[in-house]
Structures are given as C-alpha cells and as structure tokens.
C-alpha cells in the first residue's frame, strides 16, 4: 500500500471513530528502565540491552530511524549516509566525550573578564589582533568541516554525531571569542594571507573521513592545542589568558575525538593506515610550503619577545614551540598506532625521542 493510501485509509477509520493502536505492537525492546547515575541520565546510562548494541555495519539502513527502533529499512528513505560502519564512525568513549563537552561549555560573553582589558602598546595590539584574525579563520574551517561530515554519519552512531555537534558549537564559540578580542581593545581584524586560506581549503576539500580526522583533528587541532597552551605565554592580560586556557580544554577534547576514532579504525581495519599516512604526508607538505608567512610568524615573535624590538627573543621561544608541536604530533600518531617518525617531513622530526 502506498504511503498516501495508508494515510487516507486511516483518516477514514478515524472519521468512523475507530483507532488502530497497531503501533503498540512494537518489535523493539520494551520495559527498559535506564537508571540515572549521580550526574543524571547520561548517554552511557541509556545504552542498555539492545539499545546499547553498536552495529558493525549499517549500510542497509540509511534512514533517520534511531538505533533500536522498530523499522524496516527497505520502507524508509535512503539519506545517502556514507559512514556506515563502526570502524569508520564510532569509537569507545564517544558518549563520555559528548557528555563532557556538554558539561564543560562556557560563554565568551560571560566567562571572559572583558571589563579588565587595558590598552596595549600598538605593536602588541597589532600582533594580538593578527593572531586573533588567523585563529578566527582556523576556527571557521574547524566548524565548517565537521558540519559537512555530520550528515554523512549513519544515525546508528548517534554518539559520534552528537559529539560532532558539540565540536561545531565549540568552534563557533572560539571564532566568536577571537573576533571579540580583536575588536575589543583598540585594534581590529588583521590580514588574511592566501597561504593560510589555501592550507585551510585543503582540509575543507578532503572527501575521506579518516583523512579529514587525520588532517584536522590529529594534525591541525594538535598544533592548535599547543598554540593555545602557548597562549598563556603570549597573553598580555587576564582576558587573553582566560581565552586561551578555556579554548585549550575544548581543543584537547576535539583532539581526543579524532585520535580515538582513528585508533579504532586502525584496530578494526589496518589496511586504512596508508590512507591516513597519505593525508598526513600532504598536511606536513602543506605546512612546510605554506606555514611560514610574516602574518603567521611575526605576531607570535612580537608577543613572545615583548615587542617589535625584542623579536629575536621571541624567535627562540617560537622555535621551541614548533619543536614541541612536532614532538606531540608524533607521540599522538604513535599512540593511535601509526608509525610516523621516519616518514615525517617536518623539521626536526627525525631527532625527536618518543616517550
């Protein structure tokens, strides 16, 4: 019976004062009573019985129907989801990461002591404004990319989708807070060089989910996390310290998401390692080609050194931070099951001792 005919038949039934109630004969697990824990009812708490069984492959079921519901996939629309296996779209602890993201949200309007901002020397304000402009661009792509992938993830893996939604929200708050900082203290937005934009476009254009996770979450967010932790060193006031500290916590969560997903994929399907390695090859190559422009480097030298006259001092600290980024990146690759050191193109990679 066509859908419209079924609907028409039911309307007639209703007009005759009859009810159907056939939907109560539901072929899903009934009598479930998920028990809330101390902090309320979490996603893990409701993963009980059949509802907590994560399917290995859902490529025959591409509708909006939620995991555990009673439905016939053949009767439902095909939404064209592309990530339909647990290896690609799920990992341990996704629900925990989601709950943590929800619990650790903050507000750029409320939680940053904006009223304490005081004018900075012009060179320092220029530098901070340029850094904020750069980070705003970065945060745009960090939100746009998971946004693009969100509707590729099969709904059976709702924990992953939910976490990605929090990541989009986090990145929205980050671009909001960096834009606010650029406009709050007598400066303004700075330059957007084509090298930065080209580097970011590459992430945007990736059409393999693991490659995107490798490029953006593992490689990119890892570098940004180091930058945010460095932020405390370049911060000139409590406003900037607060911004960088809070953003670092979020970024660390995004990094964990990418790393946990890639680690699980590698465990389940080791043949995908080369695909990930290739994305990292290009990421490193792009960083070597595009990552050194005056707009990207000099503001950090000014802020680290303490002014235009002390950029030399900043160079030393900046070199340390670059080395730290490479070291942490290689450590994370190692941790998720990728041996990257011998293949890494980044400066100094071969000299690093993995912990």
């Amino acid at each position, binding site marked *: 019976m066509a859908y419209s005919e079924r609907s028409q038949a039911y309307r007639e039934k209703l007009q005759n004062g009859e009810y159907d109630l056939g939907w109560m004969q539901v072929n899903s697990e009934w009598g479930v009573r998920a028990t809330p824990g101390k902090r309320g009812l979490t996603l893990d708490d409701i993963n009980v019985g059949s509802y907590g069984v994560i399917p290995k492959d859902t490529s025959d079921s591409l509708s909006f129907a939620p995991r555990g519901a009673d439905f016939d996939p053949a009767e439902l629309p095909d939404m064209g989801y592309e990530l339909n296996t647990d290896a690609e779209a799920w990992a341990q602890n996704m629900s925990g990461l989601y709950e943590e993201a929800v619990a650790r949200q903050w507000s750029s309007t409320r939680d940053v002591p904006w009223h304490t901002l005081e004018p900075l020397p012009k060179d320092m304000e220029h530098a901070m404004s340029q850094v904020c402009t750069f980070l705003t661009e970065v945060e745009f792509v960090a939100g746009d990319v998971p946004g693009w992938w969100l509707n590729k993830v099969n709904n059976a893996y709702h924990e992953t989708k939910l976490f990605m939604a929090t990541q989009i929200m986090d990145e929205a708050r980050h671009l909001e807070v960096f834009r606010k900082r650029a406009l709050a203290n007598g400066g303004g937005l700075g330059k957007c060089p084509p090298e930065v934009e080209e580097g970011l476009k590459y992430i945007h254009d990736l059409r393999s989910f693991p490659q995107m996770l490798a490029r953006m979450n593992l490689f990119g967010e890892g570098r940004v996390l180091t930058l945010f*932790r460095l932020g*405390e060193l370049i911060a000139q006031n409590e406003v900037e310290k607060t911004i960088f500290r809070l953003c670092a*916590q979020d970024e660390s*969560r995004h*990094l964990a998401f990418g790393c946990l997903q890639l680690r699980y994929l590698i465990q389940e399907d080791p043949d995908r390692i080369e695909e990930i390695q290739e994305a990292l090859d290009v990421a490193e190559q792009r960083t070597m080609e595009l990552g050194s422009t005056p707009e990207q480097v000099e503001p950090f030298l000014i802020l680290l050194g303490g002014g235009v006259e002390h950029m030399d001092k900043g160079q030393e600290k900046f070199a340390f931070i670059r080395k730290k980024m490479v070291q942490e990146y290689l450590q*994370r690759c190692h941790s998720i099951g990728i041996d990257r050191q011998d293949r890494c193109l980044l400066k100094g990679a071969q000299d690093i001792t993995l912990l």
Partner: protein
Amino acid sequence: MFTFPSLEWFQELARLMNEHDVPYRRLGYADVRWAVEIQATEPDQLTHLFVFVFEEYGCKSVQACEPDTQPEVAFTMRATLGTWEEMIRNIQKNKGPDLQHTLNYLTLPDDPIYIDAPDFLSRDLFARYGQTFQLFFNGAIQVPTTFTS
C-alpha cells in the same frame, strides 16, 4: 597548620574542593585518576607520591603511595620538592599563580613539571581538565602551610 608535602596537606585541598564546588561546577565535571610526585633532591628529603581520584566536581579520594610503585593513573605530574614549593608559595602569595607559576606554564616545556603518562592520549587529559587542576591547586591559598625544606 598543614605540612607540605604530606597526605594531610593534599586531603585539605580535596576537602576544600568538595566543600566549595561551585567554581568546579562552572568548569564542568572531570573524571580522572591522576598522581603527583614530589621528588627528593637532597639526601635528607623523601620522595612522595599521591594518587587522586576526581569524579564529577570533587575529589573522591587522595592516597599516599610508595614512591617506587606504578599506580594506575592517566598521568603523573612529576617535579622536585623545590618546584612544588615554589609554585605553592607563589599561589599563596599572589592569591593565585602569577603567569610564571601556572600549571600550564610549568608543564609546557616538560620542565620543571613533567607530565608522565603511559599513553599520550591519557596525557592529554591534563590539558582537557587543565583549569580544574589549576583550581584545585589554587586551593592552597586557603591552606595554612609549613614547608619541610
């Protein structure tokens, strides 16, 4: 008065966290088992190891362990007694750490505080809950302390 380092000193930090949880609630919960190692640098000093269990917005337990044990923790913050003392004195003096004495600053170059972890992803938990750990140590402002060295 509480002596640093001692189990009682850290238990007092934990008590403060548990009894004044509003700022921790603002930051969001942190579920993590972690440790602090206070390394002796002089012959008359002892190395101390304390294991903490953070759950939700509080510290569920603090335990002293033998220094040569390997507790099951996400990571251990390792530093010399002198480093810990300086950090705590700074927090107490300034009613919060100055820029050179935050946990982030002291750990970023891996020296003077080193974050030791069995796995690099568990090491990242230090950054993920960074402000919760900082708030925990900021509790030292409220702890009348005598230092052993």
